[in-house]
């Protein structure tokens, strides 16, 4: 008797547990009624307040929609998004960039935006090209960025140098970097940050070389021009104008610059707000266009993000609408005022320049005219780590520039052939 009672008790408990598990499994399904929730995933916390404001506006115009914003730090962003997309739990709308766009578009993860009423003419042509795949637009251009030289006027004054200005050259840059450097006191002229977009992509282009052929099929690293562009940075480390890579990995040069201990630092327009409000340098900061290289050009890499709608979204039409709205005139206007990034919607950029009172931010807009797009191919993320690894070995003196770049070009061509 007793055992029977025990047994039925156990069975009942077990059944309750199974039921609880099953319910837990179901609850994420969601019902038909009530407001639709759209998830918007981004990686830059600095931009969240402005985007929240834009999302609120979207909610006002579409009363039945809730937009929740998720911020994933950029270091883990693509890993997480890809895992979520594979598992079918991805966001409805999310940021895409050039290096990752083609992977997502070519694997059917993004919804085409052609039928949403978005006008290509409202955006810079290079961004529309960047986010067009197989003749369809898969990303609504959200912002764009170019590279400039941030400099510290106090350190230029102390070294008795003139401030950098449009038309200056590589030689001027190298000279200033060396004069300002005072490693014994922790002061450096500049920094050879091992990130192509910020540093060596620009100098390779200025030397007349290319990172990847225009059709994205062959590496440009096995040319003397590319070597010249990389050597530019190796020399700066060599003569003490820049901290070594060992120092750079321990102390991010942007922080060194913000604390007033670096003369010049190449960084993107996205950092203008951060640097010009950094306490130690707010009164002495300036920006200048990139210096002119051997080719006679001061080419800057031009890149920009887009809002894309997931092809797997349960509310596809609404997701597409949100992606386009967040890149539209209204949202661009909200973003411009916060001085975070340059909005892509034509005609809203001036508000961004005006919001940055401490510096002449116009140089970032001018750089678009002479700029070149960020080098990408179908599977950019496959060769970028290889490229960065070789460049780091060259810059830290483990291999010489010529051998390193030749090997890099070989490996990169192999990877490109697989695409």
């Amino acid at each position: 008797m007793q055992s029977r009672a025990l047994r039925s008790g156990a069975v009942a408990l077990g059944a309750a547990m199974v039921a609880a598990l099953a319910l837990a499994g179901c609850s994420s399904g969601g019902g038909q009624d009530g407001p639709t929730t759209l998830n918007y995933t981004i990686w830059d916390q600095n931009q969240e307040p402005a985007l929240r404001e834009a999302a609120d506006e979207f909610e006002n115009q579409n009363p039945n929609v809730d937009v929740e914003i998720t911020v994933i730090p950029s270091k883990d962003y693509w890993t997480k998004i890809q895992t979520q997309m594979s598992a079918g739990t991805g966001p409805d709308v999310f940021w895409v960039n050039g290096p990752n766009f083609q992977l997502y578009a070519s694997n059917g993860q993004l919804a085409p935006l052609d039928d949403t009423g978005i006008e290509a003419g409202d955006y810079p042509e290079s961004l529309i090209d960047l986010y067009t795949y197989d003749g369809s637009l898969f990303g609504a251009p959200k912002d764009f960025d170019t590279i400039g030289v941030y400099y510290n006027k106090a350190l230029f004054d102390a070294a008795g140098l003139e401030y950098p200005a449009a038309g200056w050259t590589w030689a001027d840059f190298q000279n200033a970097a060396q004069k300002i450097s005072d490693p014994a006191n922790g002061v450096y002229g500049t920094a050879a940050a091992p990130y192509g977009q910020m540093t060596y992509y620009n100098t390779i282009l200025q030397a007349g070389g290319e990172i990847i052929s225009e059709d994205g099929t062959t590496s440009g690293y096995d040319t003397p021009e590319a070597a010249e562009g990389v050597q530019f940075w190796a020399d700066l480390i060599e003569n003490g104008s820049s901290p070594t890579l060992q120092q750079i990995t321990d102390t991010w040069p942007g922080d060194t610059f913000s604390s007033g201990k670096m003369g010049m630092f190449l960084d993107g327009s996205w950092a203008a707000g951060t640097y010009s409000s950094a306490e130690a340098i707010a009164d002495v900061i300036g920006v200048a266009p990139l210096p002119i290289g051997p080719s006679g050009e001061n080419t800057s890499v031009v890149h920009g993000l887009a809002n894309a709608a997931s092809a797997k979204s349960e509310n596809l039409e609404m997701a597409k609408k949100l992606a386009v709205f967040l890149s539209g005139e209204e949202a661009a206007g909200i973003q411009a005022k916060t001085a975070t990034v340059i909005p892509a919607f034509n005609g809203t950029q001036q508000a961004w320049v005006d919001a940055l009172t401490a510096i002449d931010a116009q140089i970032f807009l001018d750089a678009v005219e002479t700029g070149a797009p960020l080098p990408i191919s179908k599977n950019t993320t496959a060769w970028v780590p290889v490229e960065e690894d070789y460049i780091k070995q060259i810059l830290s003196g483990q291999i010489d520039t010529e051998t390193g770049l030749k090997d890099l070009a070989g490996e990169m061509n192999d990877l490109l052939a697989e695409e």
Partner: protein
Amino acid sequence: MARLRGREAAPRRTAAQLSRGRAWWALLFIGPAGLGLAVFYLWPIIRGIYLSFQDVGPFGGETFVGIDNFIEVFAEPDLGRALLNTLLYAAICLIGIPVAMIVAVLINTKGLKGRGLFRVLFFLPVVTMPVAVALVWRLLLNVDYGVLNLSLRAIGLPGVAWLSTPVVNMVVIAIVGIWMGLGTQIIIFTAGLQGIPDTLIEAAELDGAGPVRRFVSVIVPLLSPTTFLLSVLSVIASMQVFDLIFLMIDPNNPAQSQSQSLVSLFYAKGFLQHDLGAAAAIACVLLAIILVLSAIQFRLQRRWVHYE
């Protein structure tokens, strides 16, 4: 827990011998743990082995490719380096065990003042998030401003790029790993120490053994089952090192490609290069290596482990 003596446990009874009701109850109590084990350990292992024979697309979609993934992994130029790094890390971590034993004996000394304080101090790193631990150590090890290099320079020695010199950085990270795990090992040793009868120690004392002799001839042999348990656990855990390396070696570190462990390589393959099949193959190789190492340890225990 402290003694691996499952084999000599109480005489077995088959489920049929237990009354039926009791079997149900047993199932109920084991159920949740068993379910967890099945969902979070067994299923991933089965799935991992399955995936290692598949080519997985960047967003799913599997096709059978036989042993291609294993061929790819064994041809991977970084594999040898990653294996050496992992073995180096695991070997250094073993040094933590004698350290933990000595600390355990010292802080269990009768009449020691501030025993509680020492226990807390040694256990704090265990309950601290690895992210916080890694951040603090990175500051301490900073090449320009770290306390360690500033101290070295103060006495006229050159600083060292602790985290961006290959091999050196693996040693440094292993030391941080030891520091993080020391507290747990001390607790397990403390449990082992409490199992040593006072009479044995007193007998040794009467025979004229000093503290060092008592430690070497009585305590160390009697703790050997605990030492064995910890060495098996330590090797299993340290062969899977990932978080400290991931947190302390940045992508812009010039030694990054020379500072990968097997699991970092697994992560790079699976989540950065979108090749889950090859990543699963690495995980299978790691599983095999850990099985072999554990088997060797179990064989060697006959030579040095004393079960009272």
